[in-house]
């Protein structure tokens, strides 16, 4: 056997579906591979090209799969090392429906269909994998992409994840379908269907499906006069029924319908026609399931007119988050999507208020601060926001401020109805203090940063995490410049933040035991927010301000960026980034379980492995603390 053949087989065996094959089989496949090199932007195949005789595996580099719709090229998927694509020749005869283009210089393996087909036929795992992959890569996810492009961070995985998410969505379907038996008269059955207001009925024998009748059977076989309405139902039923197993995924169901050219699937106990009927999946169920994908949610937000519509959408987001966590989709992707949707909701709330009040008298910016500003809001937490409006002449000032205060009050009220609680500390734009002109805000930041501690009761670190939701981006830029200008060489300010970051109580005792709440309503619970997450968030903010890195507001990304900027301590930063994700996940799960903010975790209920995981996630904090202590001389305030 050739050395290179062996190396390619070694590579393939790491990835599905090849991991289902033996090494000998893989060597045979590898031996028939063609290795191609694609320069950046080179096109492998494009929409409407005749099918190739091979499908492809990415050996290195990234391949974009795109579709052209409405004269606009949109990315359906990005294929990374080990991903397969170009599966159309397996399942269809018509030309390619998408374009495969190298995003960067890539090496790909072309595996001849003729060589691979026997393995597909003999191995159902391989077949299923290919089917799923084909379904995911074929779907057009235009909406998702347009939301994806707004997020500035790790776009690479964003789109993949979204299609994953969509694919993984489970289906809800009618699990008490209408049933009848073969000897019934068509007219009676039709009446039964009409009375029950459904468009399909399953014909069964001993509770096993033998056929199905849908509205289209009635129109094509009865209305045309081919059969009298007094005939028995078995004359016009479609048989056999396409059956599937319970818990079928959206993508699979969709694919089966396409493949068999049917509009209904019958769910049975073991997935064959020889077992009891469990339900019926109709095309309509698929459409409904698609409706809770992130892109559709955002579209709906843009259309909604009332707070209660927004609330409904926010509730669906919670379902989406819960599902995704159960499906083990990385928390960073989930929070990306969630924050986009939160952002859209807040934006819509501002818009609705403007519609009520009339157009604003000056340009302004509505900024989310705190967790939403950091794009880390997975649960319904309280709302934190500020409003900055452009400078106006003194005589107009009062009216303008008055307008914006009313706008902010209205918006926060709408958001409260949606389910975001008002901030208990009053950190909202509806507060006189946090709704003011650019000059006033500049003064505010100047005084916070140059004389910290003097008026420290109203300085909160959350004002340093902000994201524009609505309005004039230039205003956000102006504030950012003020902050970074003040931060340069401002030891006093960093001292203050540093002390603030380290003041939080340690999560673990000297003996590496969790420190639990000793009194109050949350006695014996672990305060994951203040003891674990806040120190990481504060430290990341402190360090990023200190390194003068603009535009990164997310704790996870901040640590990642710090690892690049300060490579000496990269290891500490990276472990903190990971720890932050783990901790957020714990908090989110706890929050979803109890329908609260997840601040307190019940340690006693956790499994041993989860406890270990949590403990391990707390360990990097010690290193981080030392790092901060050595970086800043924390003397003035300690």
């Amino acid at each position, binding site marked *: 056997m*050739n*050395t290179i*053949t062996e190396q390619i087989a070694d590579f393939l065996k790491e990835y599905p579906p090849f991991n289902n094959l033996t090494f000998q089989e893989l060597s045979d496949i590898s031996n028939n*591979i*063609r*290795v*191609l*090199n694609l320069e950046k932007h080179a096109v492998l195949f494009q929409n409407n090209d005749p099918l190739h005789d091979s499908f492809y595996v990415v050996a290195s580099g990234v391949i974009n799969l795109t579709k052209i719709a409405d004269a606009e090229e949109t990315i359906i998927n990005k294929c990374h090392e080990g991903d397969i694509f170009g599966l159309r020749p397996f399942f269809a005869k018509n030309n390619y429906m998408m374009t495969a283009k190298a995003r960067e210089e890539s090496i790909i393996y*072309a595996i001849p269909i003729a060589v691979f087909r026997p393995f597909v036929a003999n191995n159902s795992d391989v077949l299923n994998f290919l089917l799923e992959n084909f379904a995911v890569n074929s779907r057009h996810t235009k909406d998702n992409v347009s939301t994806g492009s707004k997020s500035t961070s790790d776009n690479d995985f964003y789109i993949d994840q979204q299609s994953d998410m969509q694919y993984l969505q489970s289906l809800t379907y009618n699990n008490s379908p209408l049933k009848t038996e073969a000897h019934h008269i068509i007219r009676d059955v039709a009446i039964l269907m009409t009375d029950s207001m459904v468009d399909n009925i399953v014909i069964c024998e001993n509770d096993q499906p033998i056929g199905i009748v849908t509205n289209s059977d009635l129109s094509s076989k009865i209305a045309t006069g081919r059969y009298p309405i007094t005939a028995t139902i078995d004359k016009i039923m479609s048989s056999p029924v396409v059956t599937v197993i319970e818990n079928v995924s959206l993508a699979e169901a969709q694919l089966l319908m396409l493949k068999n050219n049917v509009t209904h699937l019958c769910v049975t106990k073991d997935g064959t026609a020889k077992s009891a009927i469990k339900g019926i999946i109709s095309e309509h169920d698929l459409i409904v399931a698609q409706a809770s994908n992130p892109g559709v949610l955002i579209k709906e937000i843009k259309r909604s007119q009332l707070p209660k519509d927004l609330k409904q959408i926010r509730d669906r987001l919670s379902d989406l988050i819960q599902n995704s966590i159960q499906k083990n989709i990385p928390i960073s992707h989930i929070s990306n999507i969630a924050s986009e949707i939160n952002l859209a909701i807040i934006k819509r709330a501002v818009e609705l208020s403007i519609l009520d009040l009339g157009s604003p008298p000056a340009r302004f910016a509505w900024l989310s601060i705190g967790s939403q500003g950091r794009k880390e809001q997975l649960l319904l937490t309280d709302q934190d926001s500020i409003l900055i409006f452009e400078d106006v002449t003194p005589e107009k000032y009062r009216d303008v401020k008055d307008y914006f205060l009313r706008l902010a009050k209205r918006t926060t009220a709408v958001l409260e109805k949606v389910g975001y609680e008002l901030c208990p500390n009053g950190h909202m734009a509806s507060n006189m203090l946090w709704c003011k002109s650019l000059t006033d805000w500049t003064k505010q930041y100047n005084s916070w940063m140059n004389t910290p501690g003097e008026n420290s009761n109203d300085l909160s670190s959350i004002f340093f995490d902000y994201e524009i939701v609505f309005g004039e981006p230039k205003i956000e830029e102006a504030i950012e410049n003020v902050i970074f200008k003040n931060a340069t060489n401002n030891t006093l300010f960093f001292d203050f933040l540093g002390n603030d970051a380290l003041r939080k109580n340690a999560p673990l005792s000297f003996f590496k035991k969790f420190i639990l709440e000793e009194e109050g309503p949350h006695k014996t619970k672990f305060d994951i927010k203040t003891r674990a997450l806040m120190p990481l968030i504060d430290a990341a903010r402190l360090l990023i301000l200190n390194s003068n890195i603009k535009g990164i507001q997310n704790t996870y990304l901040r640590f990642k960026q710090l690892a690049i900027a300060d490579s000496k301590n990269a290891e500490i930063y990276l472990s903190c980034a990971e720890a932050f994700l783990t901790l957020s996940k714990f908090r989110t799960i706890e929050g979803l379980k109890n329908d609260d903010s997840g601040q307190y975790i019940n340690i006693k209920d956790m499994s041993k492995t989860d406890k270990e995981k949590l403990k391990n996630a707390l360990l990097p904090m010690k290193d981080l603390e030392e790092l901060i202590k050595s970086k800043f001389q924390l003397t003035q305030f300690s």
Partner: protein
Amino acid sequence: MLDWIKNISKEHPEFWKDYLSKFENKPDKFIVLSTETSGLNPDKDVILSLGAFAVIDDGIEIKDNFESLLLQYKFLKDNGLSNEFIIESKMAKMEEHDAIEAFIKYIGNAVLVGHHINFDIEMLNSALERLDCGRLKNEALDVDMMYRKLTDINDKQFSLDELCDIYKIPKSDHNSSSEEAYKIALLFLKLKSRLGIK
């Protein structure tokens, strides 16, 4: 020194005549090859292994490969070298004359591609001479020359490792001639498309 006169009187082996007759047609593929040799002197040193892949239409055809160790017992014994690596290797093994004959049949009239290919060709020519054959007639391309042509650098040579670094081709620790040939083939694909060679 008037080598061709020597060769006129000699009868070439069958496979060589066959090889020569292939040049009536145009080459239809590239063969990327790499040799592992006992040293750098074509007259004294010998080829220890051969690895090659075919490149057709901008793709490496893995199946269309050649890989063999050459059993240079006499050479190794004369120079007091160990033959352990030959025994341990899982690669196909052949005597020099068999290997060269098989290789000549394999390459046919293809365009040869290598890294500093002139040396490989010299080594092959010496081996061919021992089999009473003429010199290789194939066209040859050198990836180093191609790279220097692409970048317009005339004053230095690039090692295979350097070229792999430039084009981010992963390097491996143990380099059999097959592995080298594969890397050269990848380099060749990259340079070929950049230089627009059909």
